[in-house]
Structure formats: structure tokens, C-alpha cells
């Protein structure tokens, strides 16, 4: 657990992203605020289409612009605003400062280059002092493949992605993301495309590696069980804004935002007891998002004020914040 007074490594302030489409602008991110401290393991949960991946891509500035447009806000990494950086400054951040593991390892690897070439490139461009020769690069590549517990790394260096299984490819992607020794690792659904026994291996590996190096991590997922097992603190996202944040234990013991509660109840339990109905309705249309709290059309406790005004974050406990008028004092 990281102390709460540790200064933030990453701070996202009121991030707003729109997408230009035929017929108008999709107002996808509606003021996202989050903090990641050094060495902290943070989870980001929400259903598909709620803006999790968009937020992360905006942080790394890899959103295709256009159609995306960052309308407002700041992304402070070590106090510097990533959104206003020059390309050469950005290169210092990508890889060395922040690196990312994508959901689908098959799409993240280039099919026409060997693992050795791809991993070697990452190592070469992220090396901090001076240049490395081919021999040193190969040694470092072997080293990073060994760290992710891949058998026979010498042979792997000369293999193409298609020759590896899904689990092996994801391990290669983890090796690549960590080879640059980043301070912050963004893992976007790292186990979702894998089978459950393989997902378990990957998550344990990832957890051990980040703890060992004291790397901060943002784990994006829609599987609540994964968040509970890996993270210290959780942000819950709904329709483009953070609706609740709390230490993981607190959130699972006492979810407060109506959406978080519905989500928790929707998870089928291994202990039995049937499946809850879930949350009625669907994620809103971003072209004409609901006024006020974006959850109000689906909320069982909707009040008059919810339709009019977007709720601010209310403090409800130690490090526990909820954007809901139910908890206004």
C-alpha cells in the first residue's frame, strides 16, 4: 500500500475529449479526474464504451486526432503537462516514462518482424545513456524475456508472433512494456483475450513484476474480480467521467455510487445464489448525453437535482469519493 501523502506521479485534471462524427460531436470524456502515485496499483473499471481506453490513449497522446479532439484539461506527468509537450519531449515520456500493454497482443505485435527485432527496437530507442551495440541489445532482450518466464528465449528471439500462443504473445508484450523500465505501466485488459487459467498466470506475473520494480500501474478492466486481486485503489468510470474512487477493500466492502452497486450485484458468485437482474437501460448516446448526472436515466434513486446538475465529488470516507447527490450533506 502506498502512503496517501506520496506526491502524484500522474494527475489527470478535468480531461475532456470529443470525437467528430457525421452529425456532430460525441462528447465522450466529460471531465475525467484521477491521480496515480509512485508505486501505486490503480484499477479503472467500467462497462464497454465508457471511455476507459480513450482516457489512457489521451494520456499517451496516441488518440488519432482527428476524429478525436482534446477539448480541455491537463495530464500532468511528474508535474509536466503531457498535452502541451513538444514531440521531442513526448518521446522522453513514451516508453521511458509511461508504457502500455494493449488488450489484444496479436494486434499489438507486428506480424512481419521477429520478436527479437521488435523487442530490440524498443530497447534501442529507450536506452538512456549512449548507444547500445547489437550484442548488448540481444543480451537485454534475452534478459527481459526471461523475466516474464518465457521458456527458451534464444529461440523466441528468432520467432514470429504467429508462431507463439496467445499467452506467450501477451508475455512478450509485457516484456516489451517493461524493457524500457517505465515509471508508469498502463495495462488495458491484459487478460481479457486469454483463457482463464492463462489470464491467472499473466496477472500473477504482472503483479510480481510491478511490485518488484515499484512501478505504478493502471489496470483497465471490466472484470471486477481481477481488480480486487491486483489493485490498491479503484476508479469507477461511467459514460465518460469518474463516478467513484476508493481504496480497493473499501470499494468492495461498501460500494456507494448506484452504478457501482449495480455492477457489484451483477457479478455471478462462485458461492451460488442466482444471478441478479443487473442494471436496466444502456450506456447513453454520446451525441446527446443526458443532462446533469449521466447515469440519471438508469438510476433507481434519481432525484430532481440529478437531471439538472452534474454532481461534484463528495468525500464519504477516507480516500473514498462519490459523484452522487445521494451523499451530499
Amino acid at each position, binding site marked *: 500500500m502506498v502512503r496517501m501523502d506520496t506526491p502524484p506521479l500522474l494527475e489527470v485534471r478535468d480531461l475532456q475529449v470529443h470525437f467528430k462524427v457525421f452529425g456532430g460531436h460525441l462528447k465522450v470524456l466529460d471531465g475525467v479526474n484521477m491521480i496515480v502515485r509512485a508505486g501505486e496499483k490503480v484499477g479503472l473499471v467500467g*462497462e*464497454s464504451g465508457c471511455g476507459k481506453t480513450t482516457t489512457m490513449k489521451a494520456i499517451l497522446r496516441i488518440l488519432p486526432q482527428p476524429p478525436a479532439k482534446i477539448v480541455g484539461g491537463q495530464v500532468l506527468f511528474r508535474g509536466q503537462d503531457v498535452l502541451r509537450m513538444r514531440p521531442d519531449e513526448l518521446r522522453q515520456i513514451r516508453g521511458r516514462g509511461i508504457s502500455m500493454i494493449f488488450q489484444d497482443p496479436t494486434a499489438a505485435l507486428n506480424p512481419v518482424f521477429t520478436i527479437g527485432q521488435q523487442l530490440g527496437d524498443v530497447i534501442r530507442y529507450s536506452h538512456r545513456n549512449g548507444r547500445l551495440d547489437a550484442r548488448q541489445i540481444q543480451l537485454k532482450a534475452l534478459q527481459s524475456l526471461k523475466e516474464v518466464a518465457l521458456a527458451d528465449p534464444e529461440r523466441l528471439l528468432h520467432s514470429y508472433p504467429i508462431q507463439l*500462443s496467445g*499467452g*506467450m504473445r501477451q508475455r512478450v508484450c509485457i516484456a516489451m512494456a517493461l524493457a524500457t523500465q517505465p515509471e508508469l505501466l498502463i495495462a488495458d485488459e491484459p487478460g481479457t483475450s486469454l*483463457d*482463464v*487459467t*492463462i*489470464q*491467472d*498466470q499473466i*496477472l*500473477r506475473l504482472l503483479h510480481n513484476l510491478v511490485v518488484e520494480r515499484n512501478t505504478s500501474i493502471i489496470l483497465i478492466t*471490466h*472484470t*471486477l*474480480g*481481477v481488480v*480486487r*486481486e491486483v489493485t490498491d485503489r479503484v476508479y469507477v468510470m461511467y459514460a465518460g467521467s469518474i463516478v467513484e474512487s476508493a481504496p480497493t477493500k473499501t470499494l*468492495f466492502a461498501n460500494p456507494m455510487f448506484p452504478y457501482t452497486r*449495480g*455492477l*457489484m450485484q*451483477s*457479478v*455471478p*458468485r*462462485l*458461492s*451460488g*445464489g*442466482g*444471478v*441478479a*437482474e*443487473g*442494471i*436496466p437501460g*444502456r450506456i447513453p448516446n454520446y451525441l446527446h448525453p443526458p443532462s446533469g448526472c449521466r447515469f440519471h436515466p438508469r438510476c433507481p434513486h434519481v432525484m430532481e437535482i440529478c437531471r439538472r446538475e452534474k454532481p461534484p465529488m463528495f468525500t464519504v470516507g477516507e480516500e473514498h469519493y462519490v459523484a452522487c447527490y445521494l451523499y451530499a450533506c
Partner: protein
Amino acid sequence: MPPILEYKELKKYFTIGYRGLLKREPITVKAVDGVSFAIHKGEIFGLVGESGSGKSTVAYTTIGMYRPTSGVIEFQGESLFTREGKRPRHIKKEIQIVFQDPGSSLNPRRSVKEILELPLSIHQPAKKHIGRVAELLEMVELPVDYMYKYPQALSGGEKQIVAIARALATEPSFIILDEPTSALDVSIQGKIINLLLRLRQEFHLSYLFITHDLSLMRNVASRVAIMYLGKICEVAEASEFFRNPKHPYTQMLLSSIPVVSEEEEALKPKRVQSRGEIPSPVNIPSGCSFHLRCPYKMDICPRVDPQMVDTGSGHLVRCHLYPAQTENHPAGEQVIT
């Protein structure tokens, strides 16, 4: 009463290419390799397995998309595959399927009405169907005016509900649910599952429920079978299955599930941690196909494929840790409990 559906030594091999000097030796994938089980009337039979385990092949063979390489599937005592080839219409009507991804199982150029009319026009030609379409939509709790919508105007959950309505159109007695909620968000999953449970009650349906989500299975199925590389390794009543998993692979699967409460954590077997890769179905390991990943591997495992053994009250396990009482096994093997 005979079971509604019975699989006897079902095998389905696919030839994916040829090797050898003259390219005459076929390379086969044993997608399903000797699977036997029976589903009783009114039951929800759960079939669990990871990708490549052959669970979807079992489903597709049952509805007739594939002919089995060998073995028999009997529907109420009647074989589904006759020599004439074509399956009689009265059996087709009885067995329906709901696919995993409603985005690709509904024709984007057909309205909901047309989608639901197609099975009706095949099984009840020369009849007006609009009334029945409205009835079907009511059965699945969708507004009747949805019949004029096209799939793209529906959310993922609604599309899947339309796919369920289509399966119900022929008044089947047996429905295969091939991962019906795995493409959907967890907040929508509950609605679909509860709808399916209600429909089963109302229309006396039996389900073959395929999923890889064991937590979901716990809450839905009455009996569960686990598949690994084309073979079934364990079958049991759902409650017994989760209380007392016997096969090492089942234990590994259960211990890998990410859960959301301490209470569930206590139910997971602690001793078996996941390790190793799932082997390619083209190259299935000798003997017991799980031996490369098994923490309790013995000398016999790579040599001999174990037999299915009844360990009491219908809990079947296919593992050398549970030797059959009647057979003599080589000395030096111990049962680890």
C-alpha cells in the same frame, strides 16, 4: 424416462492439411475425441472448457452443422444422423441454438420481424406470422414495435434477446446456448440469464449451456461437465462439483477465477496454481492430455489415457488419481487426496 439428448462416444476430427512426401497423410485436429454424456429433460447441462477444448464443436455437431466422424447423438432415443443425410424437419424444429455473438448471428439487412419470420415460414408455411412474431417478442419482454427495427438499432443485450426469440420461434424442446452472455457486459448478463431461466420454466425447455465462466455456471447449471482438449475430464452435479472438484484441471480452473468476495475466495482450491500453456489441439500430448500441466503427474500419466470412473453419486472423473475399483493398477501409485 430416456434422456432428451444422449452423446455416445462422439468424435469429430477435422483435416486441416496434408503432410508427407506425397502430401497424402492427413493432419487432423481431434476437436472432439470420444465424448459421452446424457442430458435429461428439464435440465441445464453446463459444458465448460477453454478455447480449443471442443465445446463449440459439440454444439455445432448437435444442431447438424457438422457430421460426426464417429459416434452417435440420440434425441429422445432417435439418432440425429441417419444414412440418408438430411435431418428430418420435425427434429430440426426441436433443437435450436443461440450463438455467442449476436452482432454476427443476426443479418444486418433484415428487420427483427423478418429475422423471426424465417424459422416460422420454414416450419409452418402457408400461415400468417405477424401475430406469432408479436407473441415471441412479448415472450422475451421486448416491446412489440421492435419488430420494425434493424439489428444495428439495438444494443448488444437486445440483439441477444432477439436471437433467443428466434430460437424459440419453432417451439423447440432443447436449446443450445453457446456462450450467450460472454460478448455482453456483466450489467446486462443478469437480465439475459434470468430471462433464459424463466423461459425454461415456462416452456419446459432443456438447455446445453456452454461457457467458460465458472461463476456463472455455478448459478445456472444443474449438472456440469469440464472439457479439455476434446475430452471430458469431469462430470458432476453443480453443487457437488463446486464443493468437491476432483480432477486437477478442474481445481486449476477454479483456483484461477478472479472473484469479488472473501466468501468466494474460501471456496477456491488453494493447492493448484495455474501453470503451462494449453497444448495445440493438433499436437495433443500422449496419455492423459493434461499431464504436461498437472501438479500430481505420475509415471503412468504420459503413457496411458485414464478411463472415466464413477466416484459415487454420478460424480465422474477421468484421472489416474482415482483408479477404478475393479481394475488392477501397476504398483507404486498412490492416490493423493
